[in-house]
């Protein structure tokens, strides 16, 4: 009898739980147990309902989930270090096909009237079936690894973002969290760069993420929470962001433009605040400020001369004063070193006289402002023009030495800043491209000391080599 009741109860629990019978049905099914069965079933429902109210605390659930995800990532990493899965290559191919399919669909959507070639249609069908195969083969094995390289719009991109969130959530010390945030902010800049390189669309969301993930760092910097090392890194990242944003500025759609302006503003703010922190730290070592802004050549009136201008030409020019020299750029290199006697222009209350030598032409402060040319004896056309504002060169705070190549126009500024000698790469030619220092960095770091170097930088013009060669440095100048 007991055995029978056990079975009846077990059967009825299953039937009622599956919704196939009501309690009354069950009691009718086993009339010999009647109310005894009914009460037992009611007990079971009551107990189960009570248990259903048991739920993990949301804070626990969230944290535990993140810890679990990190554990899965670590396990995956370990597995990959040992032996790549043979399905990897298959799945990489499938991912390629899927991307191709998506591009095909996007094109079809944008030009639906176009005839879809027979082969392309079959290609898409193939890609679709390969996607199914991918699931079967375990294409996801490398999801995390390949997600790291994914870009906005990629199917794995959400995984990348989630991984970042997990990284942040699992980092507890403020220092370490800032490191992670810096990594993330850098990644956003790199993504935009890569999207641009591949000619892919940069949506407002992409820019938004960069802003959202840079803003906390700027805030921390402004509150004085960053140490010099962190500030230096933020400065580098923000410089890169600025450059990337400038590169894509012409290519984004109008709806993105507003976000882009906001992002540029934030990056400039980041550059300024971080540069201030690094400059003013009394413990900091001497630093090298690298030239990070690529200079875009502007069309020149002379076919043999290239007139260049910094990325932010309006920042230094006073209203009404021309940025360049008044006379046309000579088409041929200048022998010797020719310095004008009379000031040709005044900028920021500094009178400027022209200087020409070799392939370069520029304006330098008139002697009355305390700047002088260091003469190189025995050379009619020096390789380098040196200009300094202190006879006891670089001996005390504020003393500067500007060094300009007469071949390339490259310019280095050495400055004594609170007893430390910094090198600022104002203008550097790399692989045929000209990079100049980030003006925001230079101004934020050196304040008024940067005035003259920036004016000189702004005025540098280089005569283009008439014979096209890959490296201008390898071409000898005309003259003895």
């Amino acid at each position, binding site marked *: 009898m007991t055995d029978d*009741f056990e079975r009846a109860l077990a059967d009825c*629990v299953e039937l009622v739980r599956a919704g196939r019978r009501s309690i009354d049905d069950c009691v009718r099914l086993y009339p010999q147990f009647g109310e005894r069965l009914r009460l*037992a079933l009611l007990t079971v429902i*009551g107990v189960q309902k009570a248990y259903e109210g048991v739920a993990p605390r949301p804070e626990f659930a969230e944290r*535990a989930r993140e810890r679990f995800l990190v554990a*899965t990532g670590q396990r995956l990493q370990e597995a990959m270090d040992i032996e790549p899965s043979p399905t990897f290559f298959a799945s990489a191919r499938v991912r390629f096909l899927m991307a191709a399919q998506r591009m095909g669909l996007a094109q079809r959507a944008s030009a639906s009237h176009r005839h879809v070639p027979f082969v392309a249609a079959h290609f898409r069908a193939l890609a679709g079936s390969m996607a199914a195969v991918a699931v079967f083969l375990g294409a996801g094995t490398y999801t995390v690894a390949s997600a790291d390289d994914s870009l906005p719009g990629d199917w794995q991109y959400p995984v990348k973002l989630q991984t970042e969130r997990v990284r942040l959530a699992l980092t507890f010390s403020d220092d370490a969290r800032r490191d992670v945030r810096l990594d993330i902010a850098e990644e956003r800049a790199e993504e935009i760069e890569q999207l641009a390189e591949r000619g892919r669309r940069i949506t407002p969301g992409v820019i938004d993420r960069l802003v959202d993930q840079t803003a906390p760092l700027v805030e921390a910097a402004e509150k004085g929470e960053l140490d010099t090392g962190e500030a230096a890194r933020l400065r580098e990242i923000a410089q890169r962001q600025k450059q990337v944003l400038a590169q894509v500025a012409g290519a984004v759609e109008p709806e993105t433009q507003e976000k882009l302006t906001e992002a540029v503003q934030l990056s400039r703010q980041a550059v300024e605040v971080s540069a201030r922190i690094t400059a003013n730290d009394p413990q900091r070592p001497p630093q090298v400020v690298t030239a990070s802004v690529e200079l875009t050549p502007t069309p020149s009136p002379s076919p043999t001369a290239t007139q260049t201008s910094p990325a932010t030409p309006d920042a230094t020019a006073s209203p009404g004063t021309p940025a360049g020299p008044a006379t046309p750029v000579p088409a041929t290199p200048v022998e010797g070193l020719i310095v004008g006697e009379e000031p040709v222009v005044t900028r920021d209350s500094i009178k400027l006289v022209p200087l020409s030598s070799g392939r370069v032409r520029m304006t330098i402060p008139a002697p009355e402002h305390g700047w002088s040319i260091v003469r190189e004896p025995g050379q009619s056309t020096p390789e380098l023009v040196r200009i300094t504002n202190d006879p006891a060169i670089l001996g005390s705070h504020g003393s500067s030495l500007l060094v300009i190549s007469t071949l390339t126009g490259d310019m280095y500024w050495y400055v004594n800043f609170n007893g430390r000698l910094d090198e600022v790469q104002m203008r550097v030619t790399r692989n045929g491209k000209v990079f100049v220092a980030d003006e925001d960095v230079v101004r934020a770091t050196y304040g008024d000391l940067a005035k003259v170097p920036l004016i000189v930088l702004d005025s540098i013009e280089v005569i283009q080599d008439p014979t096209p060669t890959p490296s201008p440095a390898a071409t000898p100048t005309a003259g003895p």
Partner: protein
Amino acid sequence: MTRISSFRYEVSGLEFPSLQTVSPELERATVDRARVGDQQALADIYDWYMPRVYRYAVARLGNTVEAEDLTEEVFLRMLGAIGDFRWRDVPFSAWLFRIAHNAIATHFRRAAQRGGPTTAIPEDLIDGRHDIEAAIEQQITIEEVRRAAQLLPDAQREVIALRFAVGLSIADTARVLGKREGNVKALQHKAVAKLQKMLVPEKDGVRPRVQ
């Protein structure tokens, strides 16, 4: 009959609460992806099963703090073992709760070695409601169930946890516990009979309070 109708009212509905599960096909596909290390699949499995593993841990341990620790441990153990999971042996849920069952056995063994009590009575056992006093008057509370379950022999408590906190079938419960189905049915019957005595109203219509 009065007491039955009043109890019928108290459990507010005669259907079993739904146990959130996914279709067997989806579960199978997901587990297969998880076996080769797909992180998204592992995350899905975690999301589907974590609440049930936690509920099981609470049912067994009667202590939310230890239940949280144990829940995490179960999933880490699962991560280490899922590569070896084979469908031909057991259903995935039975396999997972076997891990949970073993983790709890280890927990009890360690606690016994330390000599401390294994199930401290917490004040914060979650039952999803704030007005406990009012709730007790209306239906069986988790606190009552928990206290009642503590009075059951361990084997019965285990069956109750797997059957009614987790929602496993008789067959899967038997697989988890390594027992025969008939044995599980018998344990279920004994447990339900005892719980009924402790939780369901007597003739005067007043439900005995489990102390």
